């Protein structure tokens, strides 16, 4: 698959997803880029904005096997990863795979489960494998976790551990739609659209696991110049030195910038990465990797504000200005 085909395929995914998810083009693009970059995505937004619908639609469009876990406070790690169960007839323990054994895992309201259960996802997300009773079992390829969480409601929630946050390649904010988009939404529902039935929106699979693998191979050919590597490291380094930041982005964040940037370049049919790729993706890649000082948070400073300041203070390579 060449890069023009990648671009065409990506555009068709965007269009197909937009049939069911209206007015969230930026979020859809960020999620798809993260998926192509072999990363996991955390979608954050208040209830009712279509986070789950987005994940379900993507799984349909990508033609992947998908499973969904509704995270609750009593969810156990074995409910996620699976476990050994005694089989009476065979007189032995057999492994019953959990929902984690799928191509696309939708972890709905991930911060509702206790840390122990959340941590069960750690190995799966990072190593693409699950170890139970000393036996390591690989997960299908591709393996993608799309998690959602609600930023407002904090009672009875378990904040995601920093280590687990770092394992998400991107954190995407889903915002309220504009009145125009909301009108379109209502018209769609008035004419029979049902969010639980994607067939009613005419969403059909456009890819499969093999397609994604081929696209990833094509993305791997995208060139990255030394100047861009310098640009990315400069941005990440500044995130560690910013006055409002307690803990900056890790090298994993720098790598995420690189992989996501290459994916973005490929989706635009480019065989090379440009500064715009880095700048466009930096907020989604870095916002969940920054821990701010309490006084900065009290002053209303957010990670997005810090990233904006960092980007505005970092010189773009080969600029004419």
């Amino acid at each position, binding site marked *: 698959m060449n890069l023009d085909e990648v671009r065409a395929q990506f555009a068709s995914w965007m269009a197909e997803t937009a049939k069911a998810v209206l007015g969230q083009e930026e979020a859809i693009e960020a999620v798809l880029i993260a998926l192509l970059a072999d990363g996991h995505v955390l979608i954050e937004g208040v209830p009712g904005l279509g986070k789950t619908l987005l994940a379900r639609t993507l799984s349909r469009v990508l033609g992947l096997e998908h499973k969904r876990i509704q995270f609750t*406070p009593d969810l156990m790690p074995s409910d996620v990863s699976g476990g050994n169960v005694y089989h009476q007839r065979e007189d032995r323990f057999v492994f019953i795979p959990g929902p984690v054994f799928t191509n696309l895992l939708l972890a709905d309201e991930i911060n509702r489960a*206790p840390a122990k259960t959340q941590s069960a996802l750690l190995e799966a997300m990072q190593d693409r494998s699950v170890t139970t009773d000393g036996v390591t079992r690989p997960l299908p390829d591709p393996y993608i976790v799309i998690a959602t969480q609600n930023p407002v409601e904090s*009672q009875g929630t*378990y*904040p995601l551990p*920093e280590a687990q946050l770092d394992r998400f390649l991107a954190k995407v904010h889903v915002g309220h739609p504009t009145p125009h988009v909301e009108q379109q939404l209502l018209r769609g529902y008035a004419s029979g659209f049902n969010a639980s039935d994607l067939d009613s929106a005419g969403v059909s699979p456009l890819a499969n696991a093999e397609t994604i693998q081929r696209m990833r191979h094509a993305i791997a050919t995208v060139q990255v110049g030394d100047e861009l590597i310098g640009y990315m490291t400069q941005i990440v380094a500044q995130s560690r030195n910013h006055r409002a930041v307690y803990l900056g982005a890790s090298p994993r964040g720098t790598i995420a910038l690189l992989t996501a940037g290459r994916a973005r370049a490929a989706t635009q049919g480019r065989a*090379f990465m440009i500064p*715009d790729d880095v700048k466009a993706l930096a907020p989604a890649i870095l916002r969940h990797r920054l821990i701010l000082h*309490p006084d900065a948070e009290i002053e*209303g400073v957010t990670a997005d504000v810090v990233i904006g300041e960092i980007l505005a203070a970092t010189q773009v390579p080969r600029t004419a200005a």
Partner: protein
Amino acid sequence: MSGWWLPLVLLGVGTPGVLDEAGGYRFCHEPQYPLYRDERRWCDLIDDPHPSCPDLPAACAAEIDPAVDGGGFGYGSSGADGDGKGRKRAAPATGDGRKARRERMKFEIPRGLSTVAQVVLIAIVVAGLGLLVRHLLRRRFDDPADEEDASSTTEAAAPAPAAEAARQRAKETDVTRLLALARQEAAAGRFESAVELAYAAALRRLDGDGLIELHPSRTNGDYVRRLRGHAPTLAPALRDVAREVEGIQFGAHAATSSRFESILRGVLGITGRTATVALLLLSSLHLTGCGSSSAGPPEARPMLTGGDTSPSGTKAVLEAIASTGVSVAYRIETLTTVGEDVGTLIVLPDAGPEDGDWAPILEWVEAGGRLILAGERARHPDLELYEDPREATTTQLFNGMFLGFEDLEGWSIEVPPSGGLLPQIGIEDAEPSLYRYYRDAADSEDVSVYAVALYRGGGEIIAFANEDLFTNIAMTVDDNARAVAAIARPFDGEHSVQICTAWMTGRGSSSPLEAIRNADLTPLIVQLLVFVVLLVLYRGIAFGRLREPPGRSRRAFVDHIRALGTQYARADASGHAWRAYATWALEQIDARLPGERRRGLQATAAAIAARTHWPESDIIPLLVDANDAAERYGAPPSVRGPVGSAPTALEKLQRMAAMLEALGLSSRGASTTTTRATPRSGK
């Protein structure tokens, strides 16, 4: 002489109806309108009642106003002196009057003030030159140090490649110089540098036009997105150019001559469009500065109808001519040349060529033009006419004397008695058939010749003894208006008619520079230019664009408190307090009831119940919660459990404090707390 003068004596019938009240002809509609003495000469020819000028007879019958009689401007100053010497106005009264008005309206700078202005101008120029010299000297003497610094920096750093040098030169803000540099680099075979310079030129042009704002942190994508909002038509062009440039800068695309040419075409397309806008702006300025006198063909020009509506004005003349469908306008250009689009030129007194050169106009007449000299005394051998010294009481027209003016036959055309004209050549030298009418007129004792005509080449020249027939009040008499329209009508009826007046002709401008000169604005413009040059020298070229400083919003105190509360809630501050207090409380219970907790919570609860008389069923849950909280005290946020509600934690804390009080312990530990909050949990 290439033709012959023909005598014309006018006689008319009929009355025009063009002097309506809406046109501003007050003399027709105000019975007390003050007429000058010279204007009163027409009163004998005015019918009473007058249908188209109803109040003019009353104005004629009114007594002469001393305020306007014989003084000021207009006809009163000359022309009606009645000295009985033939032509009563040696210099045309109308022209003099208007000249006087023009002179009076002209703003003159007091002599003293003008001297001061000159001194100020010289001082500014001298100061500017001084600053320029100082600036140059400073650069001359500062440069070596700068060069040393630069060289030392260069030595310390790695040798800069050509592309880096090009990027440094791309800081140049002048678009033309950037493009020239790009071409130079391309000619030298350094295409990568050339591409960067050309692209920089495009960005600088857009920045200069205010469409984007260059900043080192902005990417090409930022600029394209910005253009989508401000200049949607330019955004695709910039995007295409940026793609090609980025392919060379960040991809493996080789910088070749063809790629440079392609990029340069795109860049020129961008800079050209902004140049087109600038050209349009300049064009509009040109039109603003010069009026519409020379813009486009005559039919496209707006007719100038701002003529004087007084009895001695000419607005009605213009309207009478225009009513026949002929394009007519006052001429504001000088009479140095006459365009081919002009069919008839009516020259009023003192409106001839400023340089007195009638040759180009005579050439135009020979090419088929009709020149009407209405009282204008042309100083040219072929045009000079003698004044008829005979006194005359009336002026008449012998019908049908003009070739092409057969329509005038039977019309009544009248003007007040005045001096006449004599052709320069003798009658005996001319063709008898052509001078028949003149001879008839000349033979009459009480009739003078009012107008003569001269055929010249394909055109003709008609000279009138004065401009009386070409005034507003003349249009009220008999068939004068129709006659004027017929006489002024061009041969083919398609060319335009221009009326030359002393107060308007030559006052227009054919170029911005001429407009500035005519308006006496040259010193002001020069001073402004000097001021701008000085400002540029002082502040540089970037002084022009002002930006609002970013505003800083201050939060109210309550907002800080709310934010602090939110942070405490997010950080589970009440849970933290409960866990810390529970840890301390259990330590206190251990000290009070040694060994009980080792026996279990049930035994501890029993011991506490025995001492406090609290129900054991109340004590056990409290101890279980406290024990659980103490176990998780100090754990990282992600493993210390769900965030509970603040009221629950505080309620537990208060009940524990009450139980400690009942147990005889102090519920408020002072310095006995054994644990300290970590920085992370302290939020």
